[in-house]
């Protein structure tokens, strides 16, 4: 078959996989409205969302390319040499690119492995060679634009800022290797997810916990990109300082990807002070990583080509000891179901894990302060609650996974609101415990965190209750189809803005009061009054929502 025809077919397959990825595996079939216009609109939304995501990713790549390299030109010349600056910035960019590509491709790639679309091609009169090539082209389509943009933008930016063609070529090689690593890592994580998590058997609390722990491996790129994007300057300076320490430490750093390429680029750009041993180590490591990339490319190609011929989902069948179940109350039933679904879905699990992880990272910034006072505490509480208020829409989208069935169950609005708000509140408490643990580890005072963090729990819970109430009011009748929640920007605006106001108002009020009134006792009193008032109002509104005598 001609390449153009295979490319066209791969486009059709890619659209379906992207659609399934956005509507979380087959839930597109559960959309509440059957009219052709609505379904077409949702498909259109899914397609534009996929394109938009690629454009945004490409834009981020270009932005980081120029941002990291501009700091090479506009560095404090007395502090860091040009060559060290290039090592740090090129290495950081390569790390950012790796994580960005993985994070962008992971969701679609897992759907790619889970989907039967490629398998269904086997039933058509196509040669198996063509099917595997379509599979490969389809995988390439997931990453096409960002891969191309990275290959063009960073060497071009490098040329612009340093004027070195040879340096640009080394950087180009580093980007090619990084892109191959990203593709291989994405494939490996997607395969890992389906063999160890999605297909994992067993329903005990311990196994749910274990799956959550395994999920950490899957969400590493999410955290990786978060860390690198937020702390890229610090990371660059840290490794620059490492290379300036002992000679052996410097040699060890040069052997590590991506510093080998950063060092090579700096050596061909800045020719003063040549160290042949370092150059040799960096060049040998760079060549080693290139060979590794070739191996990774072959492995990835084989894994992708096999998607259509080998079932990706492990059946995970285990020996069934008994068929007993443990029914609980309605509220506990919904919470347990949400946790079980989340423990098998990376996108849901990352939402639940992110607040605690972010808190741990932010808490370590306390080491820079002599003490953890009012300002530091409120700053970190804002960060914690801003992530926690993202949870209710995500938790309601779980309801969309089987809304066509779940709506036939005797559930009330109130049960659903309370279940989601409680999960968000528990996530906040876990973040608070992590914050306290980190603060104690850093041997700082925990008074402000205990007082303000404890009181802020009521505001965050109130925010989660208000968001859940709004979501239930908006979607109870039409059903919690994921398409409703994720493809409408207005939903986010209507849900998150009130949530943010409830969560942030006491904090902002406290900061303003502290500016004008120096008495911190009075500020604490305001903070507690506002939080408890918010909680009472939210509880009252939820209490008024439709319930039932049967609902407990």
């Amino acid at each position, binding site marked *: 078959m001609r390449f153009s025809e295979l490319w066209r077919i791969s486009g059709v397959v890619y659209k379906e996989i992207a659609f399934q990825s956005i509507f979380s595996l087959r839930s597109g079939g559960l959309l509440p409205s059957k009219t052709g216009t609505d379904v077409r609109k949702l498909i259109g939304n899914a397609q534009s969302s996929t394109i938009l995501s690629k454009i945004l990713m490409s834009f981020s790549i270009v932005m980081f390319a120029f941002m990291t390299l501009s700091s090479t030109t506009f560095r404090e010349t007395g502090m860091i040499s040009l060559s060290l600056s290039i090592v740090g910035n090129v290495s950081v960019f390569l790390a950012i690119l790796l994580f960005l590509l993985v994070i962008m491709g992971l969701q679609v790639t897992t759907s790619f492995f889970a989907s039967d679309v490629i398998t269904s091609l086997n039933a058509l009169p196509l040669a198996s060679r063509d099917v595997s090539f379509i599979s490969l082209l389809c995988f390439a389509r997931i990453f096409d634009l960002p891969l191309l943009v990275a290959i063009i933008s960073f060497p071009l930016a490098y040329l612009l800022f340093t004027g070195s063609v040879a340096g640009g070529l080394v950087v180009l090689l580093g980007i090619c290797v990084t892109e191959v690593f990203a593709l291989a890592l994405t494939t490996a994580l997607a395969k890992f997810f389906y063999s160890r998590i999605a297909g994992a058997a067993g329903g005990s609390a311990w196994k749910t916990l274990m799956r959550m722990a395994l999920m950490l491996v899957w969400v590493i790129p999410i955290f990786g990109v978060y860390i690198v994007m937020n702390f890229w300057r610090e990371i660059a300076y840290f490794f620059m300082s490492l290379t300036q320490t002992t000679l052996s430490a410097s040699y060890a750093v040069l052997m590590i990807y991506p510093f080998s390429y950063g060092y090579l680029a700096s050596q061909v750009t800045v020719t003063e002070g040549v160290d042949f041993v370092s150059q040799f180590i960096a060049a040998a490591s760079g060549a080693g990583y290139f060979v590794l990339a070739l191996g990774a490319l072959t492995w990835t190609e084989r894994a992708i080509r096999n998607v259509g011929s080998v079932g990706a989902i492990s059946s995970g069948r285990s020996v069934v000891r008994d068929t007993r*179940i443990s029914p609980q109350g309605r509220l506990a039933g919904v919470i347990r179901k949400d946790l*079980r679904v989340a423990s098998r879905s990376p996108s849901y699990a990352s939402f639940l894990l992110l607040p605690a992880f972010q808190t741990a990272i932010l808490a370590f910034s306390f080491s820079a302060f002599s003490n953890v006072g009012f300002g530091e505490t409120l700053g970190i509480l804002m960060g914690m609650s801003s992530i926690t208020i993202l949870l209710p829409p995500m938790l309601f989208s779980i309801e969309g996974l089987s809304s066509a069935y779940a709506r036939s169950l005797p559930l009330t609005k109130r049960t659903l609101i309370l279940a989601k708000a409680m999960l968000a509140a528990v996530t906040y408490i876990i973040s608070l415990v992590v914050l306290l643990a980190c603060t104690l580890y850093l041997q700082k005072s925990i008074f402000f965190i205990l007082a303000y963090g404890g009181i802020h729990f009521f505001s965050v819970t109130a925010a989660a209750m208000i968001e859940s109430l709004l979501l239930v009011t908006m979607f109870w009748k039409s059903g919690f189809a994921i398409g409703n929640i994720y493809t409408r920007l207005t939903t986010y605006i209507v849900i998150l803005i009130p949530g943010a106001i409830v969560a942030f108002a006491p904090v902002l009020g406290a900061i303003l009061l502290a500016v004008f009134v120096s008495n911190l006792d009075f500020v604490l009193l305001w903070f507690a009054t506002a939080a408890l008032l918010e909680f009472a109002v939210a509880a009252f509104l939820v209490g008024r929502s439709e319930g039932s005598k049967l609902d407990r």
Partner: protein
Amino acid sequence: MERAAVCVKDLVVSYGSLIAVDHLSFEVKTGEVYGLLGPNGAGKSSTIKVLVGVLEPRSGSVTVFDTPLAEEVTVKSQIGYVPEEVALLDALTPREFLEFTSSIRRLDRDTANSRLGKLVSAFELTPHFDTPIAALSMGNKQKVAIIAALLHEPPLLVLDEPLIGLDARSSRILKELVVYQARKGGAVIFSTHIMEIAEKLCTRVGIINKGKIVGEGTVDDLRRLVRKAEGSLEDVFLKVTEQEAGIDEVIKGLEEG
């Protein structure tokens, strides 16, 4: 004594400008297996979805054991539902899924387990009990949905094409359970495309076409209605849904290639 299990009056369901169910009325009594028949897109599943609370009607009234649909929890507690598209929570195992549904239905642990053991064994689901639903075959997913519908022993069973994908043994067991449900005083609404099954299983049938009931009664009543005393339910069905005309010509055309 017979009483109305389901009473549907002037039901209208629409998707945008498309009217799927058009002023539909029917009643199902306790002790009945009521077959809901109709060609594709006739409005059977839409009607069923309204009954079980999955879909909001545009207008009309529906009561289940004299309780209006507005009392959602009370109504839904009395229904066991097997949907046409078995879209359960694929990430969960049957054990986890049934734990979830029985929690929502507030089932007592011992009662649930005693009944569950029998159902799982009857439908031979034990080997798959801890396998994620996503990895199950269509028939096994259907069995999970059937067990979830039967576990709380509801007085009303609403089964939308429940036999699709089931093996012969499970199909036979389900049919026997449907008959038993009616015999013990419950009611069943059964939607199917397989006329032979409807003919054998249903006490009464309602034939829907273009959102309206075009024929209702026992199979004999319907035969009299279309004056085909000797014909099968399939013949009657094709007649009342005006699908009979032209079938011979279509087949002839296809045979000629």
